[in-house]
């Protein structure tokens, strides 16, 4: 293992005066100043998803991460060295991340990405920070690290070129003529003569985790227990991205029946894995499972940026606790068990027709200190009943007076409501207050159009 004395690369200004790279004419641009690439060659990596998962963990060290499938990872760490205490410590932490995912890494540092990757593939955990020393350090690496086609490597072997150092000593024009300009470009990127562009890895914004259960489960409590690690992963996912989720979907897969889907919409964005799990328990208890469950999958698609607001000292529901959270919590618990339409608020609408001058609305906002914008001017208090029937009920008429469990006594003067000629709900009624034999005040009306039926529409009191 070869390592360099000073782990931090010197400032770019100081490096201009150092010896140029071997084989590079003076005055040619050196590799991009101030970059140090870490390459990890991973054994035990099966597939792109594993690599992507490691890359999203590696985003912790630097924002510039590149993937070299099937088993390579590149990180540009020059700006992160001082945060992690030097290249050696960074290497240890990166190794720890890889091992946590079950991969065995070989990590090398070099000024160019390809050089670092080549060294890692060869098994040399280099730490080269000075571009001048790069060619010397790469000299002993076998040609296999470049992963060139077999016939090119065989031709080079027949010419007696078996190491990267020998390759770099070949004349450029002849090499290009025999092996192609593409390979020459790769060599230039290796030494840093031209800059290699590494496409940055962007972490996926969706959360989708699946867990295959060891045995088939059909009990709700056992299912919830099996889903617990998925919710924990979701919580970590949301925290690292500073996002919150508005809707969750859980799929339960059976042997023969179609997957059972359970959607859980939320009133406010939530990023707490434990709270989501508690809410999901309510939804789960309402599900009917056709068969035993073999695998479960948790998906979260709608991610919103989360603004963490100040937490209060007391828990919701405690004395002085946060009523805003308590209200939101209550709505979500009620909706989880009773359905989304179970909780609503009331709102006024313009109009005279009793059926149309009010409507159901979203549940009231839980924030304190709201503006009183919805303070409607009070109308005559006595003229409207406190309860409205869903639809007017017809009344029997005896001796010209309506009856309901006995003859009704009309105690007010009439109020005529005629409105709605512009749509089909035309209303033309004379409203009265009536008292029934038991003392209950009713709001009744008589239609002005034939056949002049009597109806009860509301109850006072």
């Amino acid at each position: 293992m070869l390592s360099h004395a000073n782990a931090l690369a010197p400032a770019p200004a100081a490096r201009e005066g150092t010896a140029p790279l071997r084989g590079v004419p003076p005055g040619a641009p050196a590799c991009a100043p101030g970059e140090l690439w870490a390459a990890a060659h991973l054994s035990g990596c099966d597939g792109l998803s594993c690599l992507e998962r490691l890359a999203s963990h590696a985003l912790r060290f630097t924002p510039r991460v590149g993937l070299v499938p099937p088993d390579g990872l590149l990180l540009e760490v020059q700006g992160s060295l001082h945060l992690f205490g030097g290249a050696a410590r960074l290497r240890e932490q990166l190794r720890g991340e890889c091992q946590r995912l079950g991969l065995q890494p070989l990590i090398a540092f070099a000024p160019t990405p390809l050089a670092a990757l080549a060294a890692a593939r060869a098994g040399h955990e280099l730490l080269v920070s000075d571009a001048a020393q790069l060619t010397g350090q790469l000299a002993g690496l076998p040609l296999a690290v470049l992963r060139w086609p077999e016939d090119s490597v065989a031709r080079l072997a027949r010419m007696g070129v078996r190491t990267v150092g020998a390759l770099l000593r070949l004349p450029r024009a002849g090499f290009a003529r025999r092996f192609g300009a593409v390979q020459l470009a790769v060599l230039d990127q290796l030494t840093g003569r031209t800059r290699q562009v590494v496409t940055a890895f962007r972490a996926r914004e969706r959360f989708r985790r699946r867990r295959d259960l060891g045995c088939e489960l059909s009990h709700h409590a056992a299912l919830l227990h099996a889903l617990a690690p998925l919710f924990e992963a979701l919580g970590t996912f949301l925290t690292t991205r500073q996002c919150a989720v508005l809707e969750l979907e859980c799929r339960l897969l059976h042997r023969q029946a179609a997957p059972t889907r359970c959607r859980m919409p939320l009133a406010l964005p939530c990023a707490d894995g434990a709270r989501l799990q508690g809410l999901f328990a309510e939804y789960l208890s309402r599900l009917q499972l056709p068969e035993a469950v073999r695998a479960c999958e948790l998906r979260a698609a709608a991610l919103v940026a989360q603004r963490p607001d100040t937490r209060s000292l007391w828990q919701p529901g405690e004395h002085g606790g946060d009523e805003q959270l308590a209200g939101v919590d209550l709505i979500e618990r009620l909706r989880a068990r009773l359905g989304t339409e179970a909780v609503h608020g009331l709102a006024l609408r313009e109009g005279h027709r009793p059926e149309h001058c009010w409507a159901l609305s979203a549940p009231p906002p839980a924030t304190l200190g709201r503006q009183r914008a919805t303070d409607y001017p009070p109308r005559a208090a006595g003229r409207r009943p406190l309860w409205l029937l869903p639809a007017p009920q017809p009344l029997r008429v005896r001796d010209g007076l309506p009856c309901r469990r006995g003859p009704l006594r009309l105690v007010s003067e009439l109020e005529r409501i005629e409105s709605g000629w512009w749509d089909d709900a035309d209303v033309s009624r004379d409203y009265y207050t009536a008292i029934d034999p038991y003392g209950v005040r009713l709001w009744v009306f008589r239609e002005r159009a034939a056949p002049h039926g009597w109806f009860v529409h509301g109850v006072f009191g």
Partner: protein
Amino acid sequence: MAGSAQLTRLLEHPAIWRGRTAAQRGGVPSGFAALDAYLPDHGWPRSGLIEILTGRFGSGELALLLPALAALTRAATARWCVWVAPPLMPFAPALVARGLLLDRVAVIGGAQPLWAFEQTLGSGAADAALAWARRPRLRELRRLQLAAERGRTLGVLFRPRRAATEASVAVLRLALEPLATGVRLRLLKGRSARRDALELSWPAGWVS
């Protein structure tokens, strides 16, 4: 703003003594002077379960409560006023006319009313919650009373008049009958010795 509201609510706890003045709050003013004099706390209790027994739905029980509910929704630290599974839909223009603020009002649908009532009382998100129950068991009533204490909510349970003979854990029980111009109340259970009937007349603007 939210912090000072929380602090105000915390200082309203009856167990906190603030030195010069004890945290005496009494009851919620009911809006009727005669009723305030009649009730044990000089108003409706701030938290706990109360029962109102009526012969028929619509005898004036909601009108009796409305001034207090309106005052609760208009307070600075107002929480919600929740209707849990009402038999009919409350008519929003009439509520507004009696002074309620509609953006503190929530209505919960009809399935599992006692569970929803218990959740509302215990959550601490509501100042007052109203529910209608036919034959709740004593065990359920006890849970409701505990939830109301925990969430510091006034829980009002409307029951039929034949429940007057059953035992109850409610803090206050009133029996109500409609009259031509108002209601007649009788205190069945409460922390005072009055057991006479009170006749209350509605204000002039209410009876058309």
